[in-house]
């Protein structure tokens, strides 16, 4: 127990101390500090994992002194005041309004303290979040060391990134919504700082938009917290009543969900995440795909037990998620900027998670957590790879990546692995895709959203991958002679290996990490059977796949040995010099139109989400 407590404390404070050192230290110690902090964080999180695994993945609660609670809330007020200042600086009435609202709600929260002691809850979901943040986050911190090497304000950048890791860890284990809100607001602040880091006009505008939407979301979350106290007399997620709520008591959950939608950039709030892609790539990888935006879905996963039995309400959460997935998948096909494609697909994947949380069956919840985990790794890998390409080719456009395999085989391989683990069976995401699809039988409308969404996902990913892979036989450099810098190659290699390994381990991970979380919510002992691919029928499948893969390798080796002669591309007899162009299918007007329609439907759904509890109360 003591080890866990120390590890948790260290996981929060080590990155923060590293951040302070980066801020105040000299330029030349930056490198050592960052490396040390990152390695320490990763190692501590591993120790934490081993410790918890040793205890059989039971939930750990760390109780906190009450005085600390006041301190944190005062901290929250300071953050809100900072927002107020930023609102004034960026000339944004909305931010000012939101932050004043936040301050008002905060003060009423201060006046109505909860009766129970708050505690940190480390269940497997929190553990997964902490592991993602600490390990992937550390890798990304190391990456930004190289990526930002020519930046004059590198120290600030690294400090914010490191501090973010600590805050993220704290948020993931908070069980008290007041605490959670404070950490959440701090991530909003960091996100604002990092998006605006380059200080170009685009960056400023994007940062401002992110600030507006996220302070709005923060206000919704705080309102939710206040209402939670009002209706349920608790600030703790674990003390929320389970299931079968109707009427006004659902109102706090509606507000909390709205907060979650803004953070996870669901329709109609997706624009901030798309614009945030102007930020340096490590920021996109860390905050805007693998960790911070996960806070939203994390929050909804925390409240799903309360939504049980009340499908009429939760189905709207599922619909918003499903809609986000569908619309962003379609829009991603029309993009040629790799980062923008990834941003759209991030929104889409988070939408999928919301959908699962909204459906709320055990299978769906398992799918949600699997998605959360695998999406984080693969997306981080993809973003980092795009960052490397961007540095080498000075472009993020997928058309400029034509025949990337020739010069950057390793980077191409990691993009391949990233996409494969996101889309193709038998990797981790495939399992969740499968589970999601099975769960839609309870609500077929969602299956229609999924059907087109999945197909579009295939189109936009493989269109991109195809362009990368184009090359003549024998023109490719050997893997180890990839032209990108050495440190990048190590990082990409490590992440790719990690992504593959963790995909291969999907069985145990589901069994040990995800089933306990789902079982905790549902108390279903038999659940693990239905999840595992090691059932009787699953065994046949597994054996068969194994057998056929062996066969496959035999066939391939047979064909490999055959002598192959190289020919020229067919061009009706002409010599062809070919440069791939993309096909994007939809015109710009159509893209605007679809976005507008999506936003409209999304906004309507959100309004409905708030109205439903009122209606229920009346009838």
């Amino acid at each position: 127990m003591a080890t866990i407590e120390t590890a948790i404390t260290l996981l929060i404070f080590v990155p923060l101390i590293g951040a302070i050192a980066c801020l105040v230290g000299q330029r030349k110690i930056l490198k050592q500090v960052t490396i040390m902090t990152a390695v320490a964080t990763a190692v501590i999180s591993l120790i934490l994992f081993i410790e918890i695994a040793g205890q059989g993945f039971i939930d750990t609660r760390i109780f906190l002194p009450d005085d600390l609670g006041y301190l944190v809330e005062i901290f929250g007020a300071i953050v809100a005041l900072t927002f107020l200042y930023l609102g004034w600086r960026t000339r944004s009435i909305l931010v000012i309004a939101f932050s004043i609202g936040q301050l008002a709600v905060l003060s009423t929260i201060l006046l109505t303290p909860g009766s129970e002691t708050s505690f940190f809850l480390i269940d497997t979901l929190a553990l997964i979040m902490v592991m993602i943040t600490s390990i992937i986050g550390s890798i990304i911190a190391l990456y930004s060391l190289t990526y930002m090497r020519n930046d004059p304000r590198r120290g600030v950048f690294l400090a914010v990134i490191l501090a973010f890791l600590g805050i993220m860890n704290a948020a993931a284990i908070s069980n008290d919504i007041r605490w959670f809100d404070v950490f959440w607001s701090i991530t909003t602040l960091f996100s604002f700082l990092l998006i605006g880091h380059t200080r170009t006009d685009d960056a400023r505008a994007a940062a401002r938009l992110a600030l507006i939407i996220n302070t709005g979301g923060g206000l919704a979350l705080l309102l939710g917290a206040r209402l939670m106290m009002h209706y349920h007399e608790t600030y703790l997620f674990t003390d929320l009543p389970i299931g079968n709520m109707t009427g006004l008591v659902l109102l706090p959950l509606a507000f909390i969900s709205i907060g979650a939608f803004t953070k996870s950039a669901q329709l109609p709030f997706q624009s901030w995440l798309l614009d945030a892609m102007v930020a340096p790539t490590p920021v996109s990888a860390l905050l805007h795909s693998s960790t911070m935006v996960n806070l939203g879905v994390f929050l909804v996963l925390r409240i799903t037990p309360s939504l049980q039995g009340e499908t009429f309400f939760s189905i709207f959460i599922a619909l918003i998620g499903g809609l986000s997935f569908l619309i962003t998948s379609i829009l991603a096909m029309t993009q040629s900027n790799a980062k923008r494609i990834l941003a759209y697909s991030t929104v889409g994947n988070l939408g999928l998670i919301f959908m699962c949380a909204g459906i709320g069956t055990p299978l769906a919840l398992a799918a949600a957590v699997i998605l959360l985990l695998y999406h984080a790794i693969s997306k981080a890998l993809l973003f980092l790879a795009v960052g490397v390409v961007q540095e080498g080719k000075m472009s993020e456009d997928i058309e400029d990546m034509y025949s990337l395999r020739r010069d950057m085989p390793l980077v191409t391989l990691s993009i391949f692995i990233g996409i494969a683990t996101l889309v193709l069976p038998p990797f981790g995401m495939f399992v969740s895709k499968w589970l999601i699809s099975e769960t839609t039988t309870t609500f077929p409308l969602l299956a229609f959203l999924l059907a087109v969404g999945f197909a579009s996902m295939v189109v936009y990913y493989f269109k991109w991958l195809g362009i990368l892979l184009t090359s003549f036989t024998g023109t490719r450099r050997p893997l180890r002679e990839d032209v990108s810098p050495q440190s990048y190659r190590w990082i990409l290699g490590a992440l790719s290996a990690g992504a593959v390994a963790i995909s291969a381990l999907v069985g145990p991970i589901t069994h040990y990490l995800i089933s306990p979380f789902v079982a905790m919510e549902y108390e279903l002992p038999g659940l693990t059977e239905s999840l595992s691919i090691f059932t009787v029928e699953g065994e046949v499948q597994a054996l068969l796949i194994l057998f056929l893969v062996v066969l496959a390798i035999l066939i391939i080796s047979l064909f490999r040995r055959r002598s192959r002669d190289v020919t020229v591309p067919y061009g009706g007899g002409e010599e062809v010099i070919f440069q791939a162009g993309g096909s994007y299918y939809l015109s710009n007007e159509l893209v605007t139109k679809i976005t507008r329609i999506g936003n409209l439907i999304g906004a309507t759904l959100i309004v409905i989400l708030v109205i439903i509890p009122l209606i229920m109360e009346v009838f």
Partner: protein
Amino acid sequence: MGLLDKIGTKSPWILHFDTGSCNGCDLEIWALLTPKYDVERFGGINRANPKQADILLITGPVTMRCEDRLRNLYEQVPEPKLVVACGNCASTGAPFHNCYNVCQGVDKVIPVDVYVPGCAACPEALIDGFVRALSLWEDKARRRESE
């Protein structure tokens, strides 16, 4: 491999290339695909793609401009491959003999297996040439293996 080579004669895929003919022979070749002559009886279909073709039906005297193209296409056809020169021009350049801009026959550019005479070569003669070319198939395949 013997069996596969035998099977090969049952599925000759065609590439038809016009190297500057008067279109007379082309029309006759297209007639092969019509109900009346129907070379699909022998499994032949027009793939229009050198990479997947087995028999090249070449018409025309091979103009200078076509020379490189013809060679390019020929090189893209995987072994074993057969070339049928269809019509007088493809065989010898006849009507265009000694013209300043022609190579005077397909065999000046690529090796030819069967010559089908006629101006234009009638469909029956073309089918005859086609079938004769097929009889050379096994030979070619065997020679390729021994190499």
